[in-house]
């Protein structure tokens, strides 16, 4: 089993979750995060509205899902397609991080391994 962590644009979260469901993903969770990469940040008014300042960090959404090894490429493809905007790939679309998972447990039944996904 592998854990897939996808840092994506917040406004794409609904497209990505729909795509994950269609791909047969059993479940996922997500949270708001703040981070910095190649994007140049945002320009905001500072203080009492007299000046602009640039904030290098931007808001993203971190989505996490654990899937069986065989589903790895399908899920990655689904996420990438949905996480890119209508204009195709742009700086700031995000990153996907894949890592091995040593065990998963279903709380209700105590099942372990792929049966718990």
């Amino acid at each position, binding site marked *: 089993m592998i854990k897939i962590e996808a840092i994506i644009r917040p406004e794409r979260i609904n497209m990505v979750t729909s795509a994950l469901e269609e791909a047969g993903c059993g479940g996922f969770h997500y949270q708001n995060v703040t981070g910095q990469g190649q994007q140049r940040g945002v320009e905001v008014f500072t*203080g009492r509205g007299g000046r602009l300042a640039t904030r290098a960090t931007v808001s993203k959404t971190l989505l996490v899902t654990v899937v069986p090894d065989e589903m790895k490429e399908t899920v990655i493809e689904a996420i990438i397609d949905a996480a890119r905007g209508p204009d195709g790939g742009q700086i700031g679309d995000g990153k996907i991080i894949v890592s091995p998972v040593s065990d998963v447990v279903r709380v209700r039944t105590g099942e372990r391994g792929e049966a718990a996904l």
Partner: protein
Amino acid sequence: MDSGDTAWMLTASALVLLMTPGLAFFYGGLVRVKNVISTIMYSFIAMAVVSVVWVLWGYSLAFGEGTDFIGDFSLAGLSGIDINDIYPGTGIPTLLFVIFQMMFAIITPALITGAFVERFKFTTYIVFVAIWVSIVYAPIAHWVWGGGWLGNVGDGALDFAGGTVVHINAGLAAVAAALLVGKRRDPGVEPHNVPYVVLGAALLWFGWFGFNAGSGLAADGLDINAFLVTNTAAAAAALTWGLLSQIQTGRMGAVGVASGAVAGLVAITPASGYVGVMGALAIGFGAGALCYVAVWLRSRTSLDDALEVFAVHGVGGIWGAIATGIFAAAAIGGTAGAIEGNGGQVLTQLVAVLATGAYSFVVTVVILKVLDIVPGLGIRVSENDEAQGLDLSAHGERAFVRDGAD
């Protein structure tokens, strides 16, 4: 007793009180979330401290007969004031005058707090408010409204609702406080809650109708004019700030437009019983422009007046006081300004501006320096407390608790 006057003045007093929690939210939205409770508390606690000080000795020091400089203790505890006494020259009870004036005394120290948010020690602040109201606010109120010396300069300095007593006073005290408390170690960039700022500004605009249109102490044409010019100046200043922002940056932020409105309200405060709508438009336009520039200029200095108290209340108040001398129309308030040939009034206004500003600055510095060395007090929190945020360190509270487990 005139029941129409009295009914309005009761309402106006309540409106002015509402401005203090309005200010709490205006300031609160501008700071980082870890300091929002602290910022709100500076305003809220002023309601408590000043209300008590006022009835014990504050009113007496401001409006007791005393000397040209300060009142006396003859009215301490409001003794000798019968509940049916009428305030001379008005149709309202004396106690109602006491109440109305108290609301001004409450908000003035609260205004100063914008300069030192996120780092001023709360317990020391409570002591500061009690002392400051007694030896800075009360004397200046006495000079302008309590029969003191500024009423005898030239034809009398014109200050209908407190441009000097409240705004210039608070603005210069803010500079003193910002200088003495020092810069924040890690200032935030954005306001944590822009809707709070706008909500606060709306409550201030609403309450200002009581502030200005109550200062004639009657429900009559003069106060109605004050209401109208107050709204007009706020609107003109908000639009001016928005326009300047649009030109300079291509956008206008809500905080900027709200600050513009407040700047206009500040500037019209001394003028509201003396100018008409055309004067109000000019005053609002001037306030929006001057305060916008003042904010920009302050950012180029090393003074960490965190919430621009001087740029808005100080500069706005100074412009308003001088503009009163320019645009005063004899038909409205009985005194002519420069546009009606009485250029001398501008000089009288300048005397009031300089005297108020200088006195406020100097005495505030003295008070803070003393408080800083009293054992157990001190004006700035520790480095750790400042980093953790004053909400937790000073008040033991978190503003928004969102663990799933609550």
